[in-house]
């Protein structure tokens, strides 16, 4: 025999569970509509990296089994020095220790964008390297790499 008290507990509980289900489904549908659910796209996104060093490297991307990549280096600011310039390369490595040049570009002497849309690499790790000329006081860069199957 159910008591009135049991009913008063059960109904709100049921409504709360139902609301939770609807909320979870709404979140799932939004991710599906955006197209980002279930996608594993290894990505390097390192923005507004400012440096005065003569050379350096970006963070490292572990591309896993994905070897078809797009890469972008965007020099957003360059100041100081004498006729300053920045040269970017995409580098790849099988072990994260030994690095090899995959691509290279002509130097940027002002704000510019260097893109790679046909980059195919068979090593697991990727990164950007840069080298400056003319000793700029500041070079600011956005780095992006996305890798796909």
């Amino acid at each position, binding site marked *: 025999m159910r008591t009135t008290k049991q009913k008063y507990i059960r109904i709100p509980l*049921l409504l709360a569970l139902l609301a939770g289900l609807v909320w979870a489904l709404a979140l799932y549908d939004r991710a599906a509509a955006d197209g980002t659910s279930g996608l594993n796209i290894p990505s390097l996104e390192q923005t507004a990296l400012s440096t005065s060093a003569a050379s350096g490297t970006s963070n490292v991307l572990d591309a896993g089994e994905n070897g078809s990549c797009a890469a972008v280096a965007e020099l957003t600011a360059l100041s100081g020095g004498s006729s300053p310039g920045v040269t970017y390369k995409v580098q790849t490595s099988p072990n994260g220790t030994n690095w090899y040049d995959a691509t290279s570009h002509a130097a940027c002497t002002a704000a510019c964008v260097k893109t790679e849309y046909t980059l195919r690499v068979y090593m697991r790790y990727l990164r950007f390297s840069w080298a400056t000329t003319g000793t700029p006081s500041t070079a600011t860069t956005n780095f992006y790499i996305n890798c796909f199957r």
Partner: protein
Amino acid sequence: MRRTLSILGIIAVACFIGSARAGTGSGDAPRATFVELDLQAEFGGASTGRVVTGSQGRCAARLNVTALAIGNLDSFLQTSSDDVNWYTAVSFGNCAAAPCSYTHLGTIQLLRYARLFVVANGSPSLATVDMIMDCPP
């Protein structure tokens, strides 16, 4: 208690079937197709919204300029990793008089997001552009 569990079970099954019918829970990723028709550009730049480039990061695109009253249009396929900073991957060219048609077959590797972008030069009073982008799942 048994009745409560039954109701919850029915709700769960209904929700699962509903999401599967919508193509979001059946295990098949929805094809990342984006279609925008009859975009009317009367300004300096026209973004079409963006698509996710899918697990292959490649998209085919078709762009038709069907009407252009004054001025000219430059059209681009752009890509982005963060949906904030956008970079031109393909320059389709300049359209000075309609009709103009451009096709990209998806031969290059894009970043995570893609969009078609139109820049109007010379203040066209009316430009109508049909855009279709299709990214394999």
